[in-house]
């Protein structure tokens, strides 16, 4: 609303009619992103149609079971990663933490420790890895991109050190079946039940708690958050720790699901997880995005993957190409929309600032 009109005594608290619904670039982008989940649902429907066209096997419980099972670990890690990225940080080391936890699990199992004791230890180790990232970022003020590229190598290296060339396979069947099997005779894998539980937990944490509020504030404007008395550093430290913890959990899941542990497990998962998060409408610059969006994005990725796997004619190489294209498109789309509207009403600046990293 124009500044000058406020000179006239305002009707107390009365909503002004002339408020212009497209103000800052951020606001416009937000408006677009508001519709993001809807867009994803649309894409999901398209995938369903396309998938069914490819194979009558697509829309079956079977597809869901196997398809979702394939994404179990990535899905778990994406949840925690969402919070990290909303806080305008990034964690590239998740897949390495997963490997380290898997290796540790195997080593301790060989050492004859009971699994019930091993799992908490692995989780603790994962949390420690996350906290390590967090401390480097908050206390030493290092950029998380650089830090986690470093720990990506470090943690996987440690996994190699821990397990070496062994590959452990004799995990107790009751556990492996749990990780591989379905929930109470349904076509829903147990891992998905675990995911659902965590999804709700993280959803609540991000969307309905003071902690969640501060995550958004920090991600959107760290300085303002700090000036409002939010514990910027502590929050970030907690988020990195959570990310490590969940990655370790994913490590346990994949170890039991494959009933085997090896140091090279889950290589490249970090990129898939980040793809899911960004595709879910979370801004790489932080401050924006929802758990729901990320879940939809995971479904979309899984669906496309399944469809292409089921197809006789289309080579599975296309999975990577489509994934990449989706990722870029998910940000490019809104931007083009914004540009068009900007072109209509002359923007405040004509040379856009360069898209900066992280």
């Amino acid at each position, binding site marked *: 609303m124009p500044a000058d009109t406020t000179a006239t005594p305002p009707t107390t608290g009365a909503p002004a009619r002339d408020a212009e619904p497209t103000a800052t670039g951020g606001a416009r982008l937000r408006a677009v992103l508001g519709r993001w989940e809807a867009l994803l649902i649309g894409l999901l429907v398209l995938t369903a149609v396309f998938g069914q066209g490819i*194979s009558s*096997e697509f829309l*079956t419980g*079977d*597809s869901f079971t*196997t*398809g979702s*099972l*394939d994404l179990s*670990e990535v899905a778990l890690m994406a949840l925690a990663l969402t919070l990290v990225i909303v806080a305008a940080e990034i964690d590239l080391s998740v897949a390495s933490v997963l490997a380290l936890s898997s290796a540790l699990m195997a080593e301790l199992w060989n050492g004859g420790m009971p699994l019930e004791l091993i799992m908490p230890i692995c989780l603790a180790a994962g949390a420690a890895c996350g906290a390590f990232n967090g401390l480097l970022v908050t206390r030493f003020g290092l950029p998380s991109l650089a830090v986690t590229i470093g720990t990506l190598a470090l943690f996987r290296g440690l996994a*190699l050190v821990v397990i*070496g*060339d*062994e*590959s452990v*396979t*004799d*995990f*107790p*069947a*009751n556990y*492996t079946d749990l990780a*591989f099997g379905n929930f109470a005779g349904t076509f829903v894998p147990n891992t998905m039940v675990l995911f659902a539980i965590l999804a709700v937990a993280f959803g609540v944490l991000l969307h309905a708690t003071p902690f969640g509020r501060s995550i958004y504030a920090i991600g959107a404007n760290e300085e303002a958050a700090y000036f409002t008395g939010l514990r910027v550093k502590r929050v970030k430290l907690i988020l990195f720790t959570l990310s490590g913890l969940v990655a370790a959990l994913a490590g346990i899941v*994949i170890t039991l*699901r*494959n*009933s*085997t542990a*090896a*140091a*090279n*497990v*889950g*290589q*490249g998962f970090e990129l898939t997880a980040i793809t899911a998060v960004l595709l879910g409408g979370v801004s790489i610059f932080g401050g924006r995005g929802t758990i729901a969006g990320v879940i939809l994005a995971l479904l979309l990725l899984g669906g496309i*993957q*399944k469809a292409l*796997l*089921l197809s*006789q004619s289309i080579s*599975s*190489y296309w*999975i*990577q190409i489509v994934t990449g294209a989706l990722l870029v498109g998910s940000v490019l789309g809104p931007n083009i929309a914004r540009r068009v509207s900007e072109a209509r009403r002359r923007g405040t600046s004509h040379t856009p600032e360069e898209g900066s990293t992280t």
Partner: protein
Amino acid sequence: GSTKDDESSSSASSNTSSSSNEANPDAEIKQGLKTVSIPKQLGNPYEEFEHSGVDEALKELGGSNSIKGPTDASASSQISIINAAVQQKPDAIIIAGNDPDAVAPALKQAAQRGVKVVGMDSDVAADARSVFVNQVTTQLVGENQVESIGKQIGYKGDIAILSATANATNQNAWIKVMKETLKKPKYKDMKLVKVAYGDDDDQKSFQEMQGLIQAYPNLKGVISPTTVGVAAAARYLSKSPQKGKVKLTGLGFPNQMRKFVKDGTVDEFQLWVPKDVGYLAGQAAAALASGRITGKEGEKFEAGRLGEYTIGADGEIVLGPLTTFSADNIDDFDF
């Protein structure tokens, strides 16, 4: 402990499901058989050679085979492929496993749905497949390779092994045999000083070879039982002063090694014919699917141009001994 018991019992069930009806040696080969063959990784030429063999076999028998593989050599992505393949209800799956146990549960599910499972090249858990087509027994590879290098260095001096990744099933099994073989009196003067891992990565293997040469001055010979490793090692040797002094053998492709055999870097190396491995696996799959065999020890079947084969213990079918390639015969091969 308890795990192993569980697995064997469950395997019993899956075996009965697959071998419920007796084998009928003169059963017709079904027409229009559909099979899916799953390599360790797409884009790996060795695998491509092998699986083209499967194609050949099924065409010959009036069926069809489609190759579906992961883009990375990981167990988890191979599981996705298996699951998708099963949904397409093929008659049989032919798989070279990335990890013997990780893929087992998925394969057992396939068996329960009446899909025959044939392992080839690198085995999967014995109870997760009906037969396994082995290019050559682990025992033979280990012995032949040690003998080959021993012959070249006069059964005397330090040797090293340049392997693939630290947890490659095949290589580790072979290396185990090599170590045992070296205990034999014949090889008592040969000392294995190091097992290095080139991760089947050209650059890494090259660096590892270079490292070996520097770290072990009196190294006499190197065994590299992986096609990537042996090629990289040969390339390093060919340009290094040790050329001809340090002997190199291993498992390699004639097409990749020809150069180095001709320029005297390598006297001899060994391998089976990958295409035949796939061909035999394809034949076995067809025989299984048509009920000619069930995977029991002692069953015999006709494997097209390769002649008759007999199923050994644990449903293992062995293609044959290693072929040794040297300056004399290398030009007779093109793969």
